[in-house]
């Protein structure tokens, strides 16, 4: 019994047997199928219900009927959900690997708060109104807070508690700043109270066009980091011996997470826990190999985000519950479950 290594370590060291790889690849196809279904649901369900036939008609034979117009409206919302979901899931997976911290999430680490504070600053003090203008502010805010949290809580002996506390504390400070701005400026309040909960409802085609390049670049970078991050998971010394450039991997990982979170936050507002939950679920059936975790996370995170968005539209009819609220309400219990499951010694 002592000789046998735990299953996940075995998966790490030995290449997966061919059958297992087939299963995983098949699972990936299945995941894509689920994603397509959820995306269809996201287009069909809302204040006006559409049949699958109408959705199909609107997607492929757009002829300007009322149903087709509704489809076109919900299309941009769904596409943004797909993109932002993938971005948050990838960012979460990369951050969890980078910090070796099972509780890392762009929201919990304060990166979303950084992007939010920067966007609010841009809107209120610099009069920036277009998304293309404040997406750069969002990057800057995300990067600044990411670096700060990393420096404060993570650079030496990062423990999940340290990182989470550093992130929460910085979020609290930035949250105070947001509130001060909202008190002084009623116009900002009117706008920000909807933006700061995280929502897909404001999505338009131009929103997507503006963040798409960043999200694509971030996604490609994140996927390319799978191998070096795998090496780093074995410990710094082993990774160095394997020829991985630790500093470059760390810097690129932070860059990828920042670009993904910054762009997603600029487009939808801060959304928490997607990046926490999905990589956990994925890891439970792929094992620790990031070459599988990352693609799965990129496909299943939008399933969660779009699913949460659909739920938000169903439960609060005829109004809707913003997606950021639904993910927080779903994700909080998952987070608490994870905290409870681990022994204190491991934290």
């Amino acid at each position, binding site marked *: 019994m002592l000789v046998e290594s735990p299953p996940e370590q075995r998966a790490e060291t030995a290449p997966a047997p061919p059958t297992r790889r087939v299963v995983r690849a098949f699972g990936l196809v299945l995941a894509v199928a689920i994603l397509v279904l959820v995306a269809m649901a996201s287009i069909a369900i809302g204040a006006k219900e559409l049949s699958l036939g109408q959705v199909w008609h609107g997607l492929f034979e757009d002829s300007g009927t009322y149903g087709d117009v509704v489809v076109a409206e919900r299309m941009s919302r769904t596409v943004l959900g797909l993109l932002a979901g993938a971005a948050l899931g990838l960012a979460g997976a990369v951050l969890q690997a980078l910090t070796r911290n099972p509780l890392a999430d762009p929201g919990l680490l304060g990166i979303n708060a950084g992007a939010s504070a920067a966007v609010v600053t841009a809107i209120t003090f610099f009069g920036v109104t277009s998304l293309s203008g404040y997406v750069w502010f969002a990057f800057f805010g995300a990067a600044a807070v990411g670096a700060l949290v990393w420096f404060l809580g993570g650079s030496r002996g990062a423990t999940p508690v340290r990182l989470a506390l550093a992130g929460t504390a910085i979020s609290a400070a930035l949250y105070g700043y947001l509130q001060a701005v909202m008190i*002084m400026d009623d116009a900002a309040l009117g706008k920000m109270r909807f933006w700061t909960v995280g929502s897909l409802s404001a999505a338009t085609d131009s929103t997507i066009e503006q963040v798409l390049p960043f999200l694509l670049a971030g996604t490609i970078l994140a996927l390319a980091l799978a191998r070096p991050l795998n090496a780093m998971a074995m410990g710094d010394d082993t990774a160095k011996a394997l020829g991985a450039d630790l500093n470059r991997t760390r810097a690129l990982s932070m860059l990828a997470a920042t670009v993904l979170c910054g762009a997603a936050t600029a487009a939808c507002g801060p959304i928490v826990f997607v990046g926490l939950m999905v990589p956990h679920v994925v890891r439970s059936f792929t094992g620790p190999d990031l070459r599988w975790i990352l693609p799965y996370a990129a496909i299943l995170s939008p399933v969660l985000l779009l699913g949460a968005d659909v739920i938000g539209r169903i439960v609060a009819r005829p109004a809707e519950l913003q997606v950021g609220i639904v993910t927080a309400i779903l994700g909080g219990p998952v987070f608490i479950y994870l905290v409870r499951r681990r022994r204190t010694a491991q934290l």
Partner: protein
Amino acid sequence: MKTTNRAVRSPGGLSIRLDVRALVVVLLLLATALTASVVLIGTGDFPIPAADVLRTLFGQGNEGQEFIVNELRLPRVLVGLLVGASLGLGGALFQSISRNPLGSPDVLGLGQGATAGALTMIVLFSGDANQIALGALVGGLVTGLAIYVLAWKRGVHGYRLVLVGIGVSAIVTAVNGYLLTKSDIVDAARAVVWMTGSLDGRDWDQVWPLLGLCAVLVPLALCNARGLRMMEMGDDVSYALGVRVERVRLLLMLAAVLLTASATAAAGPVSFVALTAPQLARRLTRSPGPNLLPSLCMGAALLVTADWLSQRAFGAEQLPVGVVTGVLGGVYLLWLLVTERKAGRI
């Protein structure tokens, strides 16, 4: 290092250990809080010199001053002192129980929970000030209870408490955001001011319940300080020393939650006082352990000073006191994170 502990013995054989430095710090902080209070009472559209303020407080002022001081400004200052003291003490209790300098009620989500209760009253029921306060009290208590139950696993302490608190806080924050989007813009503006923490328009109605709670909870907390100090050495050690660990912890957490929730009910979730006061107090007394009394005095001094700053520092525009504590707290927090990180304590 010079030792500052002295044992004081009475003829009957009773003895208490006296930390001279801590005593001096407590007296200095009390003096600061009272001086700031007098200055704050004198500040406003009708400035009153400090000497007149004192004379009026002792019943020797003229009629106009009597009205302004006793009816308008004194209750506000008293609420400030009591809220600051409650937050300072509540923060010290929580930080000691969680054994983490960041484990304060605002990080753990108690402030958010109280806010949820108050927002429910403002947004869903358009409640008046008393109903808002009641909502905040209930919200804070329910959140505290939820954190305790969820963190319970053969005892509650340390990291699990902090992390569960962060999780609960995230959920409640989302609920608050939702309530804010549901409200119309007038209620939303009112809610945001409340959510920042403000002492504007506080009168005697707020003073009495706070004073009553403090009269019960402060002695209760101070009496259990010994047990708390031992619990910082670890549950097993303190159990061996005769401390009923989980009972003391439950009692003190309940006291801390009540203190924080009632303070929040009176003034809104004034940020960072609970986080900073115990840490500043600890640095001044240089003594280990929970430092309950110094934290309490520090909280009162901080909040009154911040309230004075909020009235004076921004020219014509008066900001709620919570904005001042938020800004100061943010700066302090960065410093804390940097120094504590170097010491490896966080």
